[in-house]
């Protein structure tokens, strides 16, 4: 593409770039500059929960894995993913018992058993953390918001409450404008839970009902609390809190794990036919 320019004595004077080549280079440069500017603008926009109406889930954090499906593993319609959230982690140990029991460690062990029980029921399970790390509230919510056909279950151990009991919490009512969605079907990130509250209550009641059968003294239905973690989660979402780190022997908590895992798995399974989210590609209706 480059032409050598020589004088009469055949001495090279320089390089000549033909006009057509210059035009092609300029066009390529403009195209790439436009593309980069557009992608930069979209990443700089305020965070918004991925709408159930959007065809492809958005991943707010590139470090958070988005599940990939092979051709034979296309996501089934309806609910088939459970995002399991062992709360706290890293420097945030959560509740601490006098015997040195740490909430962040216990919930990670509980998560392992809950995961197995859910997988046995045919659910795909995604954990917000696998080790002693502490993703932010938004990072944890983003993992659920990037999925289609998912529920979110956050695991906690309390400092108080009757030992040996388990309570399920659903987010309390959130102020929502335009029914929880703004123009274009987008859900505001800070009120992402608002359109899912009714489903969250249903899921919470199913799980709490199963827990009440196994753990005497536990409430019969889900309770409400203004939970930061659930507020930004755009999926049916519950928090399960086990009482408590104040037990004298850690084995008392360990013994609860199989029952808690089984109750959560059964509760989510019972909830499955109720998972009706209008306009969600994976949802029913």
């Amino acid at each position, binding site marked *: 593409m480059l032409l050598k320019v020589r004088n009469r004595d055949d001495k090279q004077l320089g390089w000549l770039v033909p006009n057509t080549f210059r035009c092609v280079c300029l066009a390529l440069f403009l195209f790439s500059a436009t593309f980069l500017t557009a992608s930069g603008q979209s990443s700089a926009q305020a965070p918004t929960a991925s709408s159930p109406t959007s065809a492809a889930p958005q991943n707010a954090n590139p470090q958070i894995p988005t599940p990939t499906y092979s051709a034979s593993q296309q996501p089934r319609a309806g609910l088939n993913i459970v995002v399991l959230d062992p*709360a*706290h982690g890293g420097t*945030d140990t*959560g*509740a*601490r018992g006098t015997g040195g029991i740490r*909430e962040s460690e216990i919930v990670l062990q509980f998560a392992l058993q809950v995961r197995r029980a859910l997988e046995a029921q045919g659910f795909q399970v995604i954990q917000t953390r696998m080790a002693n790390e502490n993703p932010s*509230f938004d990072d944890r919510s983003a993992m659920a918001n990037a999925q289609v056909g998912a529920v979110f279950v956050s695991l*906690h*151990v*309390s*400092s*108080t*409450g*009757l030992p040996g009991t388990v*309570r399920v*919490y659903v987010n309390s009512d959130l*102020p929502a404008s335009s029914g929880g969605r703004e123009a274009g079907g987008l859900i505001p990130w*800070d009120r992402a839970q608002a359109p899912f509250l009714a489903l969250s209550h249903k899921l919470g009641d199913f799980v709490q009902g199963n827990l009440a059968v196994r753990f005497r*003294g536990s409430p019969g239905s889900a*309770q409400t*609390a*203004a*939970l*930061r*973690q659930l*507020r930004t989660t755009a999926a049916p979402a519950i*928090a399960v*809190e086990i*009482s*408590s780190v104040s037990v004298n022997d850690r084995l008392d908590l360990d013994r609860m794990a199989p029952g808690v895992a089984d109750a959560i798995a059964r509760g989510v399974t019972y909830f499955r036919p109720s998972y009706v989210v209008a306009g969600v590609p994976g949802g029913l209706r």
Partner: protein
Amino acid sequence: MVLGGLFGAVIIAGLYFPILKQRVKQTAKIQPQSEEQARRELTQSLTTNPTEARVKAKLFWASNAHDGSLTPVSIDLPLSSDPALRAKQVLNTLLAGPADPELRTLPPDAVLLAFYLLPDGTGIADFSEAMASSIPSGIESEQRAVDSLTRTLAANVPQVLRLKILIHGQEVETLAGHLDLTGSFVVNPRAAQAAIAPQPDVTSPSI
């Protein structure tokens, strides 16, 4: 001569610098304590006034069942007719705790630094750091603490429709890792709903 003067000044500065550094450190240590003390004294001096009428205040502490529920307890208190001052008085009594310390809902070392009442009915309660750092971490304990505040205000100060909680003058994300403090809590659901409902247009001509 000039060099000698400069040399002397450098030596004096070198000797004085460590003393100055120590004084700055001491001042930095003393200041937050004295500020906290001053605010505490200011707020607590307003809480009781013997000339005010004694009324039966209803305060919500934990129930004996230890199931996370609250029980109302009636106490005779001299309460002000000014809603902001009245709110401060009942919340300080709530913080002081019940006869049985096991039934406390709020940390014993927490202090109400200030209480403001906005014209729209939003009460802003500013608590000391201990409210967040000394409360037992957990959804149940944090929600119970907020419930005891909102239910006590609802029972005694009807002018407070919503409650916003600040920690040492700042908005924080959570109380102790769980409960969301970025918004406000409804104290009086019916009145709060009525306050945000669209008002009829009084300027429109009536036919």
